[in-house]
């Protein structure tokens, strides 16, 4: 399930060839700029930049996820309330202030998600794990157990497809459990749903714990509980350029 949402799209492009940590740092810098300066100008710049990079990465439009209908209705409802409040600016007798404030908040959320998606679509999870490990590596000087964290990060990357498998099977099993008799409607249904959720959670935790056991045994069998180091960092001009651009944009947005 999760790996369908954050599916890595293996299309070669300049964006894909960037180092994972360069993309990660650029995204974090840009997100900070957006969160601390959520002006229309910043949102506009981030959106335009995002679309440009989307094109540069040769990503097909089809990968954009469709939001669930529930969310759309919620957003629509909020829009009615916000529009009705009026406020400046007034265009042809209609106060658009409330609506614009509302749209600004929504656009901010969409742009943040879009950037995160871009990172996921152009970076394999394996690469991202290696990037995170390289990023935390210098922290060993201040006593952070980076080896141990690195091993957990590497194992987490490995665990994700296993966990997704398990979640899928348990979801299937939960779907095929019998529905309660008609006498159990209303409040009884909620109790039944709660029991079903607990059952499903137990099944997922138990199933994944067995996977963990296999993993632990494999580690002992290899005689090592520490993941091999990822390839050392080879810093390229394009990586530096991406980070510098993102950081500059962020700093400029704070100063203006």
């Amino acid at each position: 399930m999760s790996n369908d949402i954050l599916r890595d799209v293996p299309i070669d492009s300049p964006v894909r060839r960037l180092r994972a940590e360069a993309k990660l740092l650029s995204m974090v810098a840009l997100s900070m700029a957006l969160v601390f300066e959520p002006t229309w100008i910043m949102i506009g710049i981030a959106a335009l930049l995002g679309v440009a990079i989307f094109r540069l990465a040769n990503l097909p439009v089809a990968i954009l996820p469709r939001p669930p209908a529930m969310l759309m209705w919620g957003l629509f409802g909020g829009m009615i309330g916000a529009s009705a409040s009026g406020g400046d600016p007034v265009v042809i007798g209609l106060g658009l202030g409330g609506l614009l404030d509302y749209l600004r908040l929504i656009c901010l959320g969409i742009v943040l998600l879009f950037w995160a998606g871009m990172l996921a679509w152009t970076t394999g999870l394996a690469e991202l794990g290696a990037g995170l490990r390289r990023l935390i590596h210098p922290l060993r000087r201040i006593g952070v157990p980076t080896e141990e964290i690195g091993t957990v990060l590497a194992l987490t990357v490995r665990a994700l497809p296993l966990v997704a498998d398990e979640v899928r099977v348990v979801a299937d099993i939960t779907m095929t459990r019998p529905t309660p008799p008609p006498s159990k409607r209303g409040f009884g249904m909620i109790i039944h749903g709660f029991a079903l959720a607990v059952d499903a959670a137990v099944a997922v935790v138990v199933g994944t714990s067995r996977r963990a056991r296999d993993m632990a045994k494999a580690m002992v069998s290899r005689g090592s509980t520490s993941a091999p180091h990822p390839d050392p960092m080879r810093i390229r001009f394009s990586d530096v350029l991406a980070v510098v651009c993102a950081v500059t944009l962020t700093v400029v947005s704070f100063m203006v």
Partner: protein
Amino acid sequence: MARTKNDQHRRAVDATKGPLDATELADAAIAAALVFAILAIGRLLAAGTFFQVLGTVVFAVLAARHRTRTVVLAVVSTVLFTVLLGGTGPITQSAVGGLFGWAGGTSLARGYSRFKTIGLSLLVGFPPVAMASLAFFWLADELRELTFENVRNQWKGIGRIFDLVNASSAHDSGTEIIESIIGWWPVALPVTQFFISIVYALIVRRLSRRVLRGVNDALGPVVPMDLELSNATEGPVAPVPLAIDGAPIRRGDYVVNESVTLAVGEDEHVAISGRNGSGKSTLLDTLAGFGADDDIERTGRPGLGEVGGLAYVSQRPEGQVLAPTVSEDIRWGAPDDVDVEAALASVGLAGFGDRLTSELSGGEQQRLALASALARQPKLLLADEITSMLDPEGRAQINALVRDINESGVAVVRTSHLAADLDEADRVVTIGEPQRPESQGLLNTNFVGRMLLTATDVSFVYDRGKPWAHEVLSDVDLTIRSGELVLITGSNGSGKSTLARIIVGLASPTSGTVELGEEVHRAIAFQHARLQLLRPTVEQELNSLAGAHNQTPQGIERGQRIASAMRSLGISHLGKTRVDTLSGGQQRRVLIAGLLARGTTLLVLDEPLAGLDDEGRVQLTDVVDQLRREGTAVVVVSHDPTWGHDRVDQHLHLVQGRLTDGVNLTSTEVPSE
């Protein structure tokens, strides 16, 4: 008594110092991946809060079973990965989930009361949450004002719509309240969070307690430490020659086999056979050095995973892969100067270095595990049922590889119940009682009756419209009648699992139609029966599976159905038995009994024979005949085209989503006695 024992255990867990061991690392990583997946789904469904609670429960269960360091590492890993989900929301959710999960889980493990749990949760969770959000709101002043402005606007908008502005005192006082909350946000925010924290701690406690009980029921309350290596023998590494002379084989305190005699010399290839439960796997674990190995005579240390020592390969292909890419996996724990390409070439995986391990087939993953073993130039290879999850082609490749390894001077000890595997060995040692595969036999084998399901031109495309869309089924036609035995075979990725999900109604075809007869109840028994069995005892499980909740007339009738299903499957004597103590074959029968008692008329069995010995296979075949006699249609999905039942009515073989030479036996061959 049990409580004090658990307390002692808990104190021992808390007192452990130093880096995480293999079990803790794996549990931390699995929990991190699980919470990440949960939050990702929450993000997609825009229901973050509900999924945050589930993630917190996962951390709580981890905290109840492990020491704090394990939880901290799991949370750190989750937080780092949730950057991928965008914005600050998921990062906050995983961090908050970690704090409250730790507090809730620790409280459960220590048996804290409700008040003490709230106290601990507030102590650990509230200060960081309050301070972080105050700092964030103070720094991100623009976003704060924008948010407040939107709250004001919504309230004003609602008032305008109902024409209440300046007309209703209720609306005016509402405006006042909102304004004062906004004006006093540095106070209002932490006060709100304080009360939410209390409610949150209570919800987490309630949910985690239920989940933890279920998990402890299934896995045992104490995390087993049986992965520690014994150090009975000292000195230089020398795994062979070895000998066991009439010694018992134990798993923990439990004696699996009273007396085992075995001798393995250098360069030898020994196969161990025996029925399920005879202790084959436990014997290999003991040889590998897991647990006590006092009874094994060796000239030196076994040296598991060391250069020139012993290497161990196990049954589940995907369970042994540790790293995301093939080359990293080879390098895990291998000597620094390991030649990755040479190791891969030696198992026929040349050029696979950059491939993702999760995209390899089962056979390729097993070969990778062998490559990893060979990279250590072992003297002894232990192989536990390494072909049982593979299709015939993968099995043949692995057997050829094991033969080469043995011929290059490595001693091999392997377990198997397949004749083809046993034939490879220089000699076969049978442990435990011999098998007695005897079929009950059926005189009349033609049970085929009314139509239950007709599928016409069924195709299925995964993720239609996405760049990774692929067609897994094309134009499949299929009719299933009552009492029929349908065999669906195909290799991994042939579409047989998707067809099974469509037959049982878990998936809808993207094109084509599925038509159902009257009164058709469909169910599926998945390969890993344990996932489908959630209650501690067989009786409770059957009640749950059959949907019996109470003693209403329906409930009583269901009780009779359960009793009759138990008789049909020969498990009447197991009612009070704990599900954990059952063998894989018995668990599968419990599951089938439960599905039958539910009134299932079309039953899909996913790989029902995987891991069963000859006796178990014969028993299951008898069960299938019994089901068909009662009018249930049985669909068996397997990667093994040599499925041992000689009374298959329809055999459908799938190759890349298409039916090939599907043989319809009903029309041509009705066995007669």
